[in-house]
């Protein structure tokens, strides 16, 4: 055994002395140059591309809808300041959380004309990637605005932070995520401004119904953990749908 090991070591050392020619640097470079013609087309890493597109969508969103956004935010803060702190106000506050996404969504759907889609199809990025980034930017913007309003409410009404923040956050997030998912679905399937108008009308009807009847009280009495679970499910669905949209090869909808 020992003898074999010694022999193998000796052989290994001997084989390393095998005379080899000096490889010319030019030959290596030639191979590399040839290989460059076989390289796959340069693509950015998905995460880098997603970040870049979402950032662009944010800038576009703030610039393009600055008037609508400013008016919506001012209106929201005005109502929250003026109205006295009652249960109706809390309900109203929660129901107005998706207001930015409803307003921007309406304009967004309104701009999804045939010409616009054709134009976006000629962009460097695919139509699906642009849609993905817009929806993500809209959802995050709505969540950020809502978070600001929550803190504002807590500040002006001196509500105990630890008790209310999680409850209010959970309740207000539900409609935001729900409308983001709906907007994504409608953008892929129908892309018709009328469908979004119907959604807004249904929401207004639901808000009025909740405030004027006991529906609102029932909604508020449900444990906030239920809303938390619903939010997790909605978020998972939204992420799943967004990933699917990103991965789509072709235009998901064809104009007739």
């Amino acid at each position, binding site marked *: 055994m020992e003898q074999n090991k010694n022999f*193998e070591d000796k*052989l290994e050392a*001997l*084989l390393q002395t095998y*005379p080899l020619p000096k*490889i010319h640097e030019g030959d290596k470079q030639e191979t590399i140059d040839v290989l460059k013609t076989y390289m796959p087309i*340069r693509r950015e*890493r998905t995460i880098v591309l997603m970040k870049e597109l979402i950032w662009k969508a944010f800038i576009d969103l703030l610039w393009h809808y600055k008037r609508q956004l400013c008016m919506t935010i001012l209106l929201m803060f005005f109502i929250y300041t003026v109205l006295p702190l009652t249960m109706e106000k809390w309900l109203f506050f929660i129901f107005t959380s998706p207001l930015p996404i409803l307003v921007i969504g309406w304009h967004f759907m309104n701009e999804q004309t045939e010409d616009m889609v054709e134009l976006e199809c000629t962009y460097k990025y695919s139509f699906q990637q642009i849609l993905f980034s817009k929806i993500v930017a809209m959802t995050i913007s709505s969540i950020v605005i809502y978070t600001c309003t929550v803190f504002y409410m807590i500040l002006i009404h001196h509500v105990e932070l630890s008790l209310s923040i999680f409850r209010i956050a959970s309740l207000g997030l539900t409609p935001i995520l729900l409308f983001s998912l709906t907007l994504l679905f409608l953008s892929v399937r129908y892309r018709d401004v009328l469908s979004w108008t119907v959604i807004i009308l249904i929401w207004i009807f639901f808000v009025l119904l909740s405030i004027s009847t006991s529906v609102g009280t029932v909604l508020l009495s449900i444990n906030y953990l239920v809303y938390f679970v619903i939010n997790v499910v909605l978020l998972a669905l939204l992420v799943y749908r967004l990933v699917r949209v990103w991965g789509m090869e072709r235009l998901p909808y064809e104009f007739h």
Partner: protein
Amino acid sequence: MLEDDGTLIKSILLGDEQAMEMLVRRYYDEIFNYIYRLGSSYEEAKDITQEVFIAMLKALPTYKEQGSFKAWLFKIAHNHTMNSFRKNKHFISFSIEHENVKVGADISEHIANQSVVKEMLNALPYTQKNTIILKYIYGFTAKEIAKITGTPIPTVKSRLRQGLEKVKKQMREGK
């Protein structure tokens, strides 16, 4: 920064030329020397090495990170060398020359000029020589050699044993 093969492969698939250059430079010498050791001339080894890397680049999208990338690359190198030898009748003439030890005058003169180790390896049949090179120069396991050469593990072990016996005999005679 030294990036591992897996990271470089992912970057190459995204079209990163620098990653490709890094990977080629990492393995060029080993692949070239392997092909040269199998009995190619410098020019042949250069051409086959280039073919190996082109084949690697074409096959990269189907590469699955199971086992080492080096072994996968050597498998391509082995297949291309075999094809080239078959095409140029190189392998057959080499085997006849060395297995039957009926060396022609010009070739005998050529071999006489080589170092002992080269002579010793060239005296072995191609399959045994290849197995010994892969095991003792490149440090591949029997399982990896089996994958590279496309032969069952017992065959690899048998070739290794037979090759070593012959080398031992030659070394004894050399003394």
